[in-house]
């Protein structure tokens, strides 16, 4: 009952998507770093922020008055999903186009964003817990 009717309406799915996307980005960054000296390798990137932002904004949007409230897309996950793309640019480190500084920066960013998302998700579960038990932690 809780799993089927409550969870889909808490936006947990969206956070899970964000976490998945960030861990995918971490994987891709790790892969770029691991292949920094692999000839012929092309660096990969994960782009998803735009679709993620759209998903979060969508959730905050108020439905127009004439529309029935059922049309508010609360908790519905977005169809846009992250994608791994191969980047063909002119940068060269001598072997391939992996820029170590860029990858390191991306890694730090990803780490911070991931911690932020876990914090939000934790808060969301705490709210749910309060609603279920009636006790405020």
């Amino acid at each position: 009952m809780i799993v089927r009717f409550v969870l889909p309406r808490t936006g947990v799915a969206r956070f899970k998507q964000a976490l998945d996307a960030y861990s995918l980005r971490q994987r891709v960054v790790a892969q770029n770093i691991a292949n920094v000296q692999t000839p012929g390798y092309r660096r990969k990137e994960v782009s998803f922020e735009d679709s993620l932002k759209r998903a979060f904004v969508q959730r905050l949007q108020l439905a127009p008055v004439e529309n029935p409230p059922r049309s508010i897309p609360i908790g519905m996950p977005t169809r846009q999903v992250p994608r791994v793309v191969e980047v063909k640019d002119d940068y060269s480190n001598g072997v391939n186009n992996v820029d170590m500084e860029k990858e390191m920066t991306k890694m730090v960013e990803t780490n911070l964003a991931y911690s932020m998302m876990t914090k939000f998700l934790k808060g969301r579960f705490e709210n749910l817990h309060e609603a279920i038990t009636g006790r405020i932690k």
Partner: protein
Amino acid sequence: MSGIGLFKTLEISAAGLSVQRMRLDVIAENLANVETTKTAKGEPYRKKRVVIKAVKDRARPAAGQMEFSRIMESNTGYIPLRLGRHSASEIPEGSVKTDDKTPFTLRYEPGHPDADKNGFVKYPNVNVIDEMVDMVTASRAYEANVTAIQTAKDMFLKAIEI
């Protein structure tokens, strides 16, 4: 969840580490043999190098894991990720090759037991400066992989806190 998990990240970084470690091993061997004029084959030591190539990983998640993800995802309204054709991870793999192309260095040392009739001794085709430069890049790349592992670990611990 196919292949997005942080364990996959650790696996990739570990492969990066072992490739760089292999390079360091080979560099150490080259440096140790920089003056070796005779090997089992009767000729001077030949420089070795690690050739790195990326191997695409097509591992599928285990059946039990698939089932769990599927139930979890269908009940939370989660749409599984479709990641596109570049999503298969590319894992670096090193293999040791002997450098047969670079010529041996000749040094005029008539008193040397391995000298030819003109008094020249063939020394290995190892260039110490090249090896040192390679050593620095290998050790930096190793460090970068360590940092990637640490970050993945951090993220994993954060996920446990939820």
